[in-house]
């Protein structure tokens, strides 16, 4: 079977069209700025922004609010093994989601859509499972967690700030890049930003109560994932 477009009588000669359009194309290109920073540098900057935001929370916010740096990582000796495992898995989850959202793959067109869908759908349940199934501070003496907001309001604010910074950095890195499967890529990008915020509050906060963890820790990850699904496709359109 052949296929050539419109009926030949309506199709302009492609060579003539292409030559005719070179002038207008050139004019539009000359008037438009091109991004000068290479993609790898942009992606590196986005990763650095996520790391910097998390580190800032570890160093500053936690000591301001809880009087102790990285209060969330202060656990009873019996829970140190669990802390190590959960912290490593959370870091791995966060970096993996960031990588899946930013990678150009082998084709230059990004991660396969099946991987994007899997990452987008699994990020929140995986995070929730890690922090809710055996909450790290659930068995801590009450003195350690005294003064915590029962609904995790402070964690929500910290997570929103860290997530927004990561979200902005990742969106800036992806702008004009990888023009395929933008909705799912947006979802994974939002999930990655949410996971950075989730990692930050994990380090920031020593809470072990289910309500607090659900609202202050897990909800931001879910919200950023949804935000990514809904907003990123439009943000990435130039």
């Amino acid at each position: 079977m052949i296929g050539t477009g419109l009926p030949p009588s309506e199709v302009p000669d492609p060579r003539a069209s292409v030559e005719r359009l070179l002038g207008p194309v050139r004019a539009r290109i000359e008037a438009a700025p091109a991004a000068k920073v290479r993609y790898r540098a942009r992606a590196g900057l986005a990763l650095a922004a996520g790391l910097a935001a998390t580190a800032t929370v570890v160093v500053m916010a936690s000591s301001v609010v809880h009087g102790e740096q990285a209060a969330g990582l202060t656990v009873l000796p019996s829970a140190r093994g669990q802390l190590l495992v959960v912290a490593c898995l959370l870091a791995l989850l966060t970096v993996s989601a960031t990588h899946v959202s930013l990678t150009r793959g082998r084709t230059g067109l990004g991660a396969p859509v099946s991987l994007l869908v899997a990452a987008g759908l699994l990020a929140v349940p995986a995070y929730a499972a890690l922090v809710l199934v055996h909450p790290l501070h659930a068995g801590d003496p009450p003195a350690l967690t005294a003064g915590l907001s029962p609904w995790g309001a402070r964690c929500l604010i910290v997570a929103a700030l860290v997530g927004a910074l990561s979200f902005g950095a990742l969106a800036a890195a992806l702008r004009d890049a990888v023009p395929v499967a933008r909705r799912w890529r947006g979802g994974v990008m939002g999930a990655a930003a949410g996971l950075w915020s989730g990692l930050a509050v994990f380090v920031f906060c020593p809470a072990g109560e289910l309500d607090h963890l659900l609202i202050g820790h897990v909800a931001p990850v879910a919200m950023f994932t949804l935000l990514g699904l809904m907003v990123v496709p439009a943000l990435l359109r130039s």
Partner: protein
Amino acid sequence: MGKSNLEPVRVEEVNGESAERRPEASVRLLPSASMRHHPNLGSALMERYASGDDAVFDQLYSLTAPRVYGFCVRLTGHPAAADDLFQETYLKLHRGRSTYLAGSDVLHWIFAIARSAYLDRLRYRRRRPEHLGSSEDAAEMAASRSDEQYRPDADLAADHLERVISVELQKMSEKNRAAYVLLREEGLSLKEAAAVLGASQNAVKQRAHRAYEQIRAALRRAGWTEQDDDRNGAAAE
């Protein structure tokens, strides 16, 4: 962008044959398989362009534009809309050039940009409906000629075949159309088409199959048989 010091590489020269020796060039929207013969050249040119060498744009354009234009015509179904989409595609390529992955197939990347730009246009049109004349026009134009008599002349037969295919392509969903065009006309593999369309290989296979079946049914309704199809396809090739 600076003025190019290099003469644009003409597609005919890249192919090593002139258009005059190929009478079907006036019929085929894909006047050459230049990128198929020179995939590394496209990649090398795009790498230079991505690193800020504006002078290679003309060469890159000459190498890729014919197939990109054909793809745009197929997506939009209307020459004027194809012109706009084509320009938009190269503008986006320019804006996003720093994100090009060295060594990847530049044509597939441009196809993805073109399709993405086309989807943006569809969304924009859905939000602000106005008559831009595309698929409906193509269908109307072809329908208005449906009473023309078939004559057993190879060119007219090919013309008729083209009309049926064109009309049917514009009737189907954008997803099916894009899958069909990339697989059947642009010659991409299933894996490549899936990457360009941002869908799974199975989904692309099903979409292309649905498109193919729709076209086959339309050809049968128009009085074509499989043998006619093959014979006239060969004549037009």
